[in-house]
């Protein structure tokens, strides 16, 4: 697979994964390795002993850290969390989450644009977790976002790409932007579909962590992302309604003639 550029980093893998919900710390570590992911997402929470073990094990894997602002419901909360993350992790990368609805965990588009605008002015590389709304995405780009992370489906649902048309439209309207499908994927085929649409990467957590065998599933997503990307780069054949034989008609034996 060829390398690609994510913000200021050159990467091999187009799969980014979360570090939450694993049945055990060792499963998380082995899943990260099996996934091939070079970028992992983390959060900031009140200190506890579990956090201590987590952090020392994660550091040992030497992956790029993408801190999130999970749990924030306003631009102000997200901006404060981003400032704290920059100091703790020593990175200007931030996965910006501003949630607008408890039930669907749908991003708040207004809070998102407000926070992104402020953080970009302060030198952050903002990875906004957003809906697939075209105009919201345009506003985020206007604010200076070089990366967009529209949802495939609500977080943790595993429904896959519920609106491929909207995602296709984003790819068409922002051909040069880094687009990553974030959240809602449940199966490797969902990841392959996103990559076939021309997305630059996918980010997921639950589908791997909650699989019966997370390490094997991580490997499955690794393959799926590579397969989907290869399909996109190779160029998919145009879909058509009428069947067309692939074996030549010319030279068909007479006893098969109609």
């Amino acid at each position, binding site marked *: 697979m060829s390398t690609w550029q994510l913000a200021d980093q050159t990467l091999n893998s187009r799969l980014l994964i979360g570090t939450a919900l694993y049945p055990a710390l060792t499963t998380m570590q082995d899943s990260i390795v099996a996934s091939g992911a070079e970028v992992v997402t983390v959060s*900031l929470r009140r*200190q506890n002993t579990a956090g201590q073990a987590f952090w020392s094990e994660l550091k040992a894997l030497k992956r790029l850290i993408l801190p999130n602002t999970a749990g924030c419901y306003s631009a102000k909360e997200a901006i*404060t969390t981003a*400032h704290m*993350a920059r100091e703790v*992790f020593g990175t200007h990368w931030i996965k910006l989450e501003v949630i607008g609805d408890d039930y669907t965990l749908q991003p708040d588009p207004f809070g998102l644009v407000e926070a992104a605008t402020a953080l970009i002015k302060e030198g952050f590389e903002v990875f906004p977790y957003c809906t697939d709304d075209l105009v919201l995405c345009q506003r985020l780009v206007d604010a200076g976002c070089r990366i967009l992370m529209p949802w495939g489906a609500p977080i943790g649902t595993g429904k896959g790409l519920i609106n491929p048309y909207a995602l296709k439209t984003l790819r068409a309207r922002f051909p040069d932007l880094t687009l990553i499908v974030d959240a809602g994927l449940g199966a490797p085929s969902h990841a392959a579909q996103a990559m076939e649409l021309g997305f630059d990467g996918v980010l997921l957590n639950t589908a791997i962590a909650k699989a019966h065998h997370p390490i094997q599933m991580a490997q499955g997503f690794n393959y799926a992302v590579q397969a989907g990307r290869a399909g996109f780069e190779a160029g998919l054949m145009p879909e058509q309604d009428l069947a067309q034989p692939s074996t030549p008609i010319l030279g068909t034996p007479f006893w098969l003639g109609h």
Partner: protein
Amino acid sequence: MLTLTLNGETIQAHANTLLDQILAEYLENIDLPFAVAINGVFVPRQQYTKTTLKQGDSIEVLSPNVGG
């Protein structure tokens, strides 16, 4: 005496206590990087020795954790 909140727990401190002193007292056994916010506002590390706590301040000390 001041009544403060540290990560959701009520604590007492003398008047004119600095943030630096509170952190040294309550976080001595935890070996994790951390960042601090008071009343929802980030306090950069360089300000710890210059930040005097006030009655009712709510201090959050956050560290790396799992996340999606």
